């Protein structure tokens, strides 16, 4: 309660200060790329997959504190998960794992979810498992504005 006015939760700041899994994976099995310079956030997510399980994940992000923290968090969350489990990770789950995000920053969690989905799709494509590829949700408008006026 006492800190509701802070832009970011302690958890967000932890991941921002000391982001986990920064970098690229040399021979990644899937890569997801979302965002663009105009909207101010770009995220690249790399995954390594072994027998349907994500064994490693890394990211590179250009963006605000929330973009970096969600990138860090989503890479943490997917490690050790099956692809099906990973596909169930929603932006809300990422935000929640970070003890919440300010509403103006929720689009960053959407970005993280989309990057993950794209990386998994990329993996399926590379594997020729085209039937598994879900409609990519990325590249829609990531700016979820704070509609909650009044």
């Amino acid at each position, binding site marked *: 309660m006492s800190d509701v006015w802070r*832009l970011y939760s302690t958890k967000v700041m932890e991941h921002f200060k000391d982001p986990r899994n*920064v970098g690229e994976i040399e021979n990644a099995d899937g890569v997801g790329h979302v965002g663009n*310079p105009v909207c*101010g956030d770009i*995220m690249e997510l790399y995954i390594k997959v072994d027998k349907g399980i994500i064994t490693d994940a890394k990211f590179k*992000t*250009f*963006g*605000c504190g929330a*973009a970096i923290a969600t990138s860090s968090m989503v890479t943490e969350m997917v490690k050790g998960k099956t692809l099906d489990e990973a596909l169930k990770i929603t932006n809300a789950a990422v935000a929640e794992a970070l003890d919440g995000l300010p509403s103006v920053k929720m689009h960053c969690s959407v970005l993280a979810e989309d990057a993950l989905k794209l990386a998994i799709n990329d993996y399926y494509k590379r594997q020729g498992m085209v039937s598994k590829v879900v409609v990519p949700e990325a590249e829609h408008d990531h700016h979820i504005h704070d509609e909650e006026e009044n």
Partner: protein
Amino acid sequence: MKRVYLDYAATTPTRPEVVEAMRPYFTEAFGNPSSLYSYGQEAKGAIETARTKVAALINARAEEILFTSGGTEADNLALVGVAYASEGKKDHIITSMIEHHAVLETAKFLEKRGFKITYLPVDAYGMVNPDDVRKAITPKTALVSIMHANNEVGTIQPIEEIGQIAKDGGAYFHTDAVQTTGHIEVDVNKLGVNLLSMSAHKLYGPKGVGALYVRKGTRIASLMHGGEQERRRRAGTENVPGIVGLGVAAELAGEEMREEAERLIGLRDRLTQGLMERIEHLHYNGHPLKRLPNNVSICVGFIEGESMVLNLDLDGICVSTGSACSSASLEPSHVLAAMGLPPELVHGTLRFTMGKWTTEGDIERVFEVLPKIVAKLRAMSPLLKSPR
């Protein structure tokens, strides 16, 4: 950890002398200035003394100063006041694309209510071209509003020239001098303005008080309706301590401004040069010469502003991305966009603004800390591909 505050353009601390001067008006001389008894009249006297001081700072007459709740209200009053007073006769306002939101959003409000607004472009330095004003002005132009110096990039506009054009065109001229008053010379007669906005908290006065200069004879409608305060032009019980504070801050600024500006220019140029030397892929924003003494604005390539600000904060350094007002918002700076910067650079802006308590040591601290942060964030940036 010693805090290094380099965001004086966002707000300044209130000077101890100002706080001291305000104090009696909370508890002792607390009367309502509209009251008849001597006790209320004393408060009225304190307001009038402050009015004289503020007027002196900008070479105006006391009765031309109208106190408001801040720079935002002053800007709103200038635009809405002139627009409503001109309604039915004139319906056009000229402003620029790099004004503060307090002007831009008010212009948009008036646009919705039927006024026509021309938003003038700026050049790569953030400078308005007086010729553009000349071309845009028509007999229907009620007001030209161009800021004195831009709060983000520090560029000082050719106000005198624009003032002459407005005058010749029969339009009123307003300038938002929130960033200049008390920092560089502001003379309403030299500038040729009808209206000028200022804000106390940008010149070591308290937050929540400002002033609008209204040249004698300039017709404006009221924004705040009610009592007869401020010669019926701004209703509401006066913020007596705040107004007293603005008065004292204005007086002290007048005395110290010249010397302080020189000192700040030294620090400013040192910071600019030092950053250029230490960090690659920097883009320098604003005019190199016609700029505020205390403003350094740069774009840091390949990385984003907020993440730099937050990292600097972790090291006790307070700076801003664009203007403070838009810091918490998503929109990239409209000023840098108007100057033609590509979006990824706009997103990588840092604004350092120095002031009274800034030391050489503060600058050194930036030199120590910022390059490491830039390196860390660049290592994370997908825009900067590491050679494989």
